[in-house]
Every structure is written in C-alpha cells, then in structure tokens.
C-alpha cells in the first residue's frame, strides 16, 4: 500500500504513437513525471498537444510505445479499475436517474459487481450520500435532462468516484460550463480532493483553474506533447476563491502563460 506523499504513478521516458508506418503520429514524447499519492496535478497546454493521450496512457486504455509506466510500482498493461474518469460532456445515461448513473461503475468493477444484487440498498445509500456531499441531495432521483449543466457534471464526477478509485481523472470537465458554475465546481472538486485524499489529474486549458486546484502544474508543448515546464503551486490550502485575485496567484498564471505556445 502506497502511503500519502509517496510516488503512486511514475512515467519514465514515455512516448506514445498513434497509427503505424507513414501515418504514425506521435502524440506524446518522452514524458517523465511522478504523481504522488494524494497529489493534485494539472496538465495544461495548447489544444491537440496530447493531454488527453496522457490520460489514456495512465488509465491503461492505450499502451505506451516507449518507456515505462507504473502505478503502485506495477507496470500498466491494460485498463486498471483504480481510475475514475470524467469528461467535458457528462455522458450520463438518459434512461437512468442520477443515483442510478452513479451506480453504473459498481455494476462493472469487481468485487462490487457480484455483490450488487445482494447489497443494492447499501450501494444505493452510498451513491446517495456521495451525491449529497456535492450538494445534490434533493436531486438523486432526477433524470439527467432534469438537471442543469453544473449538476450533470457533479453527477458525472460522483460516478467517477463511487468505486473509490486511486486516481480521479478529469478531462476538461468544466469546459462547457459558464464562468460562475465553473468556479462553483472548482470548489466542489477542491473539497472532494481534500476530504477523500484522492489523487487527481486534471487536464485543462484554463490556467486559473489549474493553479487554483493543483499542487503541480505541467505545461505541455504542441504535438508531440513534451513537458516544457513544471510549476509547483505553493499557495496554502484550503484555498478560497478569493485567492484567485491575489498577486501571487496571478503571477503564477502569468508565468505559466508565458510557456504556452513556445518551444
């Protein structure tokens, strides 16, 4: 068992190529980084820089072409259910209520899968509690189309968390939301990370979002994605939205901006 603060995910000289032969496109190149247990990292960069490819690598959905990738010291060879994912589109199933959407991973991941029929009520209660913890207490039995965009995204994040994954992966999860809802969800995500001590990886192109939420921000270059800057964010936690208006915060954002689109 990896203790908080110890390395959980390690990438060493990892590259990944899509396609073969003349059509091969290198998505990420020579990535080396370590994600510590409980750490919140953010990956920022221009669009098409391989941020999402990096997520697919770590979740085991795509194999590495070169280099080594380990989680808890074990090489990643295929999908590992230690990961929970949420994307820009909430991708909730419209024929299920919020609570049933959150339960979906438990119907797939072992050992929950075989316990599902016996302990349905307990699991349901757990899903309800999780939704309540992100402020959706009164909406557990609503269908996705009865929820606002922000609520749908909260539900989607709950779905990513229900099986208690080691790593929470967020691929531009707030990209489609309006500015105020987005800030609300930053705080919700901050609280989830704080309370559950989950390791989180956020892919975004919003630098303020990255600095507000993350302990470490990685800036990636244009394709093929390389890490061009590693920025530690030392702002004290818990962070309040007010911090985004302070000088140190803005200096950090400014500093990161200067590394984007430059090689």
């Amino acid at each position: 068992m990896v203790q908080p603060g110890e390395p959980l995910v390690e990438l060493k000289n990892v590259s990944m190529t899509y396609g073969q032969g003349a059509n091969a496109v290198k998505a990420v190149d020579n990535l080396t980084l370590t994600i510590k247990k409980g750490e919140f990292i953010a990956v920022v960069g221009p669009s098409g820089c391989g941020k999402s490819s990096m997520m697919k690598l770590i979740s085991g959905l795509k194999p590495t072409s070169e280099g080594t990738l380990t989680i808890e010291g074990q090489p990643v060879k295929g999908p590992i259910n230690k990961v929970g994912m949420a994307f820009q589109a909430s991708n909730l199933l419209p024929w299920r209520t919020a609570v049933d959407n959150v339960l979906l991973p438990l119907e797939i991941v072992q050992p929950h899968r075989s316990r599902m029929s016996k302990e349905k009520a307990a699991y349901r209660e757990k899903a309800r509690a999780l939704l309540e913890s992100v402020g959706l207490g009164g909406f557990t039995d609503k269908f996705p189309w009865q929820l606002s965009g922000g609520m749908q995204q909260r539900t989607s994040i709950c779905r990513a968390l229900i099986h208690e994954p080691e790593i929470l992966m967020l691929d531009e999860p707030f990209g489609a939301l309006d500015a105020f809802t987005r800030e609300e969800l930053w705080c919700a995500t901050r609280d989830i990370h704080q309370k559950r001590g989950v390791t989180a990886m956020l892919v975004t192109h919003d630098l303020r979002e990255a600095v507000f939420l993350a302990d470490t921000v990685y800036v990636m270059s244009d394709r093929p994605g390389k890490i061009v800057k590693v920025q530690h964010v030392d702002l004290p936690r818990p962070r309040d939205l007010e911090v985004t208006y302070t000088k140190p915060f803005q200096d950090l954002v400014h500093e990161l901006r200067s590394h984007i689109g430059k090689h």
Partner: protein
Amino acid sequence: MKNWKENILAPLLFTIVLLVLWEIACRLFSLPATVLPTPTAIAKAMVQYWPAIWQNGLQTLMTTLLGFGLAIVFGLALGIGIGWSKFIYGALYPVMIAFNAIPKVAVVPILIIWFGIGTIPAILTAFLISFFPIVVNVATGLATTEPELQDVLRALGASKLDIVRKVGIPRSMPYFFGSLKVAITLAFVGSVVSETIGANSGLGQMMLAAQAGFNVELVFAGVMALAILGIALYAITAMIERRFTGWAFRADGIS
C-alpha cells in the same frame, strides 16, 4: 386530455372536410360510381359487406402481426450483431442492402411456389419487407455509443458485452421503437401485396375479387378498411414507443 384541439379536433375536422369535398366533387361532375364512388356509397358498402370486411380484415391483421413479430425478433438480433462487430457488419451489410433493394412483389411468386397460396407467403412477405428498418436503426443506435462513455467503462475493466448490455442496447431502444412505426406500416403493405397476388382470404384478396366483379364500392371500402387498420397499428406502436422510451421524449428540465 391535453392539447385535444391539436390531437383530436384538427385531424377530425380535416378528414371531414376532405370527405365532404370528395362527395361534392363526385356529385358536381357526376362521376360514375365505377370510376370514383362517393364517400356515402363507400360507407354503405362498408355496412353492407361488413362481415366480409371484418373477416378478411382479421386475416390481414393476423398475417401482418405475425410477420411483424418475426421482423422484430430477427431485426433485433441482426441489428445487435451488426452494431456489435465490424466483421459481422462487413459480412452482412452488402447482402442485406442488395436484398432490401429487391421489390418484395418479385419475391411473392417464389414464396407461393414454396409454400402454396395462402397465409404463409403473406406472413413472410410482411416479415421480409419490414425487418430492414429495424436492423438499420438498432445497429445505428449501437454504433453511435459515445466514445468517451466507452472509455469511462473500459477504464473500469468493462468487457464489450458489458458496454453493449449496459449502454448500447438501452441507448438503441428509441431507434428501435422509432423503426417499429415504419416497420408496422411496411409489414401491412407486405401482407396486402402478397394477398393481392395469391391468397384465399385477406383484405387484398377481397379487393382483388371485388375488382374482378366490378364492385368498385367494395374495392374502395377495402381501401378504407386498410387505411383505418393502418392508422390503428401505427397508433398502437407509437403508444408502445412512448411507454418504453419515455426518457427520450424529454419534458422541459428545470433549467
């Protein structure tokens, strides 16, 4: 009932206006009853020949529903197969398109050679003509499952079967029920076409016999019966669709 003006009054009014215009046109131009009988004459014929219309109508309804039932079973199975695997898709799709391009009228004589004049060719024609839209729609529903959602599930270790069962099939249900509305009317057309070519009973056969005897009123009474039966079948299918995939007909959300 909500919206009864749009849903009941408007179509009823339009139909009545249409019939009245028809009646007036027939009388105004004094069209002979052998060319176009008036609606009142057709109504009279419907009352007069009611036992025959009722019996043959039941026969047509039976062959239509049996053919439709077969189409649902095979259509669902093939649709899931084609949506599931690119290989099955590649193997079956061209053949199915070729088969669908054949006018089913051309198949009826073959069916009659194999099964004799009667009920079976009508059932099979109804089946053959109506299963294609079901296959295409179910396959489309399956094949368009969002890649991100598949990633979410695959990252959890979900198998292809899991994804199809939990997401693909429920997701394709609105497509499936939508296609049923098309399929039921097609099945009906198939039955009647087959009955018109070779059968001992059914509305198609009844109309053919009436035509041979210059009983034009009965031919039109048959047309009316077909139209009414067609609407009824469509309405029932549409109701089933709403009952089972209500989530796809979303009401206004709270935001």
